[in-house]
């Protein structure tokens, strides 16, 4: 690498690409939710088709997971470290939170919790925690 040479790294470009993939996967997700709803409303589906239709919206989310892995691998070492720590926090909070809720469920009546909320909670929580960790590192004297 020559002195002053700009290496092949563009953080905002990578972020833009990843954001585009997020938007696209969300669009496909909503589209498949609509397809799923209409299929269940309009057709008499057999058991196999019910399973297929019910799981159809999971496909773009799996694609999003692969896109996120690619994005993670393109990050620099510091951002990878922060992202890893954030994932540890979000999955840890989720694991302990659901365990605590399960303990409560065994002993008393609590409102039911749909496990489909776990994915958005983990992803959303992870994003928030990354921002908090960045702020902590930037503000700490």
């Amino acid at each position, binding site marked *: *690498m020559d*002195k*002053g*040479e*700009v*290496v*092949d*790294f*563009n*953080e905002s470009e990578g972020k833009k690409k990843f954001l585009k993939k997020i938007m696209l996967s969300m669009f496909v997700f909503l589209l498949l939710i609509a397809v799923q709803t209409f299929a269940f409303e309009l057709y008499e589906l057999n058991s196999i088709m019910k399973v297929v239709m019910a799981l159809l919206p999971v496909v773009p989310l799996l694609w999003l997971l692969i896109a996120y892995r690619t994005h993670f691998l393109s*990050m*620099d*070492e*510091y*951002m990878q*470290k*922060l992202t890893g720590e954030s994932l540890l926090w979000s999955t840890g909070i989720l694991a302990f939170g659901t365990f605590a809720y399960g303990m409560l469920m065994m002993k008393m009546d609590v409102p039911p919790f749909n496990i489909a909320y776990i994915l958005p909670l983990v992803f959303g929580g992870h994003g928030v925690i990354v921002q908090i960790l*960045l702020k902590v*590192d*930037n503000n*700490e004297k």
Partner: protein
Amino acid sequence: MKNRLKVLRAEKDWSQEELGKKIGVSRQAINAIERSKHDPSLQLAFAFSKIFDLPIEAIFEPNKVES
């Protein structure tokens, strides 16, 4: 690990963003290294060494290990 990155960067009149682009890391990474919040990998330390034309030990100072 202590380092002289902030001083060396100021001497070159580069922003954190500019230095980050030159060695292929984010502005946040430069900020964290300058604040000793993140110890760079050996590869990154060599990149700093090359960009400032200084040996690694002239940029980074390891924490003293008590024997």
